[in-house]
């Protein structure tokens, strides 16, 4: 239910994914295929996601730059791309079912797939699951 006193250990932060400071996740399927979404922490901060504006397949995106936007009742947020590259596929379910972002942020709530242009070098700028958990803890203790 509510999250007034929710502990950060309650957030689902799957191992095996890479994470950004802006709370996106990236799943490397192959060197040509990376799936991108937002974390359960981001989904809960937004809450009530009502619209998702996806990028166009073919769009070039840059690491740390806005790739698309997500709208909740009260706010609009950018989704920052975890890698540079070209968008190859988008989640067609999201425009009609934006609630998937809240319900299944790591599964059916994915945003887009990209073909990275600088995978190995840019990986160094991202966090693994345990680093991201620590990062969330540092945010809560501020």
């Amino acid at each position, binding site marked *: *239910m*509510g*999250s*007034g*006193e929710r502990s950060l250990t309650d957030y689902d932060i799957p191992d095996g994914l890479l994470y950004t400071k802006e709370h996106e996740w990236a799943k490397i399927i192959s060197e040509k295929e990376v799936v991108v979404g937002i974390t359960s922490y981001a989904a809960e901060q937004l*809450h*009530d996601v*009502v*619209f998702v*504006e996806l990028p166009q397949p073919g769009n070039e995106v840059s690491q740390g730059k806005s790739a698309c*936007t997500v*709208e*909740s*009742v*009260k*706010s*609009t947020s950018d989704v920052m791309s975890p890698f540079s590259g070209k968008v190859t596929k988008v989640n067609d379910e999201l*425009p009609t079912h934006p609630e998937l972002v809240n319900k299944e942020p790591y599964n059916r709530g994915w945003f887009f797939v990209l073909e990275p242009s600088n995978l190995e070098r840019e990986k160094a700028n991202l966090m693994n699951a345990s680093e991201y958990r620590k990062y969330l803890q540092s945010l809560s203790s501020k």
Partner: protein
Amino acid sequence: MAKITQLYSAYKDRAKLTEFAGYLMPLYFRGIIDETMAVRNAVGIFDVSHMGRLRVSGRDSSKFLNRLLTVNIEKGENGKAMYGFMCNQQGGIIDDLITYKLTDELYILVVNCANKGKDLDWMNTNANGMDLRIEDMTDESILLAVQGPKSSEVLDNFNYLKRFRFDLSKYGNDELMVARTGYTGEDGFELMLHNVSHQNPERGLKLYSDLVEKVNSKGGLEAGLGARDTLRLEAGLPLHGQDISEDITPVEAGMTRFVDTSKEYIGREAHILQQDDVKRRLVGLVAYDNCIPRPHQKVYLGTNEVGMVTSGTFSPVLKRGIAMAILQKEALDQSNAFEIEVRGKRCKAEIHQFPFYDAETYGFRRKKLD
């Protein structure tokens, strides 16, 4: 350090909290959409104890308030709640408020949390030489809102109250003021329980939990400020500090029905002068193409910038973006279709009357299904 209301401990573990006008308040419990729809279809309960509660008493109370406020206080009978404006000499809105008339010599004013300090300053400035007492009773009372079509089942003892009427009752041995007022567009009640301080909040907490239980039993929910904001915007009710301010008059806000220029009050001359020559108006806009307007976005007619969004949200009832915007009268005379600049792109928006929802389906005027 943010302030809290006397009821904070009742919900702090259940609510997602947010800071609003210096108070740590529930933003939502289950979610803004669920809570908005609960109020539209059943009932919701809100802690609104952050709102300022000012007591005005003394022989000159009626005379004082009638000069201070745009509504005709002297015309209203005892037991009436009156919505109106406190304006400056230029006619701008210092605050919008509800005045509860207990007697000719005793009133309670419910004012916006963020404006309470400047309201008190303005009131004291204008109270010189009058037989009058102005007291802030915010920290010694609580205010709850029970809103929605089933609110009359939760407060079934008070169904005799007509809209914008109130009565004094008892909760145990304590005085409880119950009013048929609200900020959602729905039928609803606002309840004020006195003598509930931060040191002794127990009776307030008891009233809150009693009401939450009844609300839940009617299929209703506890609701936060997130739902309160979508509800008031769907109903076309302005929020001071956003849609109305000291720079906007009730004439520009299209709210002259709460202004009585036949009596003397501060700001009257400005309002009379403006009535036939209003340059801009506060209007409602419905957005198209999955676009959600947000405050401060610019509004265009063709290539001309003609105004600004003052409030914007996703409407859970309409399932699209809605907004209040202040637009040039000249542009409004030419067109009812505009464009809002949203993140570098133009999105179509059309003028819509208030309320945004169908008043036969939602709101206090809805057709009752029996």
